[in-house]
């Protein structure tokens, strides 16, 4: 693995950096938009966890499938989905990815392989297994990647999906983003094992994989390996990536249940983006190249914000459409 990381190409590294930065800047903007009450309802930011989404996003094939959670803005963006569509959906605008019918917890873009963001804990693990089964059946060598949190390892669907995927040898990669907390409760307080995903792998005959989820090179290399294994027909993987969220669980949560020193340590010493920037400079990448990416990203976020803000609310009539495939919501003749 270390060799692989040492040998990453420069343009892959720049892609990883750009991808993480786009996530960070987009979500910072989303946070600002909440503060201005332009984003209603709730929203769950992945600030601090960008390396996992970015590492996989860069490693995945264009036709692979992403299944993610309500904390899925970043996983959606890294597949090439329009930032305007994402911010527009958060703001309930007509330009939103689903024209406001889904909201921040359900970002979906089928044309980019983003097969949905799911907000009932655990539900999407079996669904991802199903997409993987379909890929296996059709012989397409596509892989389904399924992201979820540490808290999700304690729900039944997690265990059903793992057993099922192993028994059928499905091309699916399960990625547990262990950010140390479920909503407000430390995961260690409610889990029988120290590493909620990695320690359960053995129960399903899988290798125990525990990685630094804030090191994008490590995530990328791990992703490549698991994707290749799945594509070759060797079956699923379960990866536990350690990380931390910089903000509270959701918009309403100031995150006061976490010790200040813990938060400070993760933000200051283990921030995936500032650490990666330092590494890239150490590796001899010109600072000007990084600054160019940073400037372009700022411009992208400003443009997306402006486009989303200028988009009108969706026509309320569409509330009555698309329950059924014929476009209608009618249940009688």
């Amino acid at each position, binding site marked *: 693995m270390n060799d692989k990381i040492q040998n990453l190409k420069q343009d892959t590294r720049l892609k990883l950096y750009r991808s993480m930065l786009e996530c960070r800047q987009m979500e910072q903007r989303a946070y600002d938009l909440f503060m201005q009450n332009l984003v209603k309802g709730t929203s769950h930011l992945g600030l601090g966890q960008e390396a996992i989404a970015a590492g996989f996003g860069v490693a995945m094939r264009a036709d692979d499938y992403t299944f993610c959670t309500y904390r899925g803005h970043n996983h959606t963006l890294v597949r090439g989905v329009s930032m305007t569509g994402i911010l527009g959906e958060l703001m309930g605008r007509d330009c939103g990815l689903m024209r406001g019918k*889904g909201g921040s917890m359900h970002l979906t873009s089928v044309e980019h392989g983003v097969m949905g963001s799911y907000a009932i804990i655990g539900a999407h693990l079996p669904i991802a297994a199903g997409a993987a089964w379909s890929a296996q059946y059709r012989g397409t060598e596509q892989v389904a990647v399924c992201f979820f949190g540490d808290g999700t390892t304690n729900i039944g669907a997690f265990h059903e999906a793992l057993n099922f995927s192993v028994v059928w040898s499905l091309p699916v990669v399960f990625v547990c983003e262990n950010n140390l907390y479920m909503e407000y409760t430390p995961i260690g307080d409610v889990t029988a094992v120290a590493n909620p995903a990695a320690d359960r792998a053995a129960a399903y005959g899988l290798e125990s994989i525990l990685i630094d989820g804030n090191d994008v090179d490590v995530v990328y290399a791990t992703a490549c390996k698991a994707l290749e294994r799945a594509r070759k027909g060797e079956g699923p993987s379960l990866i536990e990536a350690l990380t931390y969220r910089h903000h509270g669980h959701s918009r309403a949560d100031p995150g006061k249940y976490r010790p200040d020193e813990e938060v400070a340590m993760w933000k200051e010493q283990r921030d995936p983006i500032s650490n990666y920037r330092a590494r890239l400079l150490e590796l001899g990448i010109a600072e000007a190249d990084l600054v160019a990416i940073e400037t372009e990203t700022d411009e992208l976020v400003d443009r997306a914000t402006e486009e989303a803000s200028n988009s009108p609310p969706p026509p309320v009539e569409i509330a009555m459409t698309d329950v059924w495939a014929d476009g209608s919501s009618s249940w009688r003749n």
Partner: protein
Amino acid sequence: MAQLSYREAVAAGIAQELRRDSNVVFIGEDIASAGGVFKATVGLLEEFGPKRVRDCPISEQAIIGAAMGAAMTGLRPIAEIMFSDFLAVCWDIIANQIAKTRYMTNGQFSMPLVIRTANGAGSRFGAQHSQSVENWAMAIPGLKVVAPSTPADVKGLLAAAVRDPDPVLFFEQKSLYGTKGEVPEGDHVVPLGKAKVLRQGDDVTIVALAAMVPRAVKAAETLHSEHGISATVIDVRSLVPLDTTTIFESVSATGRLVTVEENPRLCGWGAELSSLVAEELFWDLEGPIVRVTTPHIPLPAADSMEDAVLPSVERIVDSVRRLAD
């Protein structure tokens, strides 16, 4: 035409679809090698092989989740849930995921899948293996709900369900598995959302579903021969979409509506139908709408008690007579 049992019609219906479209696949517990706990899927593994007819672990969420993921990505799965009572174990995937995903994503997905399940009483299995739960499904926007009463409709409605681009819950009535009937050979499709008038009468419209259909027909015969009351009997067949046109036409003509439901009383499909008729056909009615249902209790196991609480031919006859008097 061939004489088939209701259970043989299930296998014939699935086989027809597996033969027609290579994207159709069939999964469930004990459905392949064992041919199903009700022996309704015998022979499918032998004809279509383990890639298309696949046994699953006892993991209802994984089975239904897998069906959903496959339906979203180009397949047309049929998934079996052994007893409809077990739908509660995977209800999140059905009610929150399968039913809502097309809507929430502004139509980005179709969900062409069928969930088949053995529903209803009559086997003395007790309260966790006997419920009629079609009204659970009917309450969720985004699910189509079908419950055939004859072998011909099993094959034809199953074909329509598999070919439909929306998710369909297909309720097979356990107590009907052994019943026989003529089933058309060759491609046989009965469109969803069409009620069937089984008998024409002038005095009252009896609307029934699944196992209650043969009882309603028998009751109508008795009403006619012994009491001089002539009843129309309608098999609803599909609760969603609901064929209000056929039902309303008959209720307008007879002026009286009796529903016969196997489900417990509260929020049964007959309540919805009654409210529609009360709202839209009030001035055509000549008497109150009457619902004949199982009482609002979990089902008892002993045969004497189970028989006593399910709507019987006698109870239907009595209810109609009281209304007609």
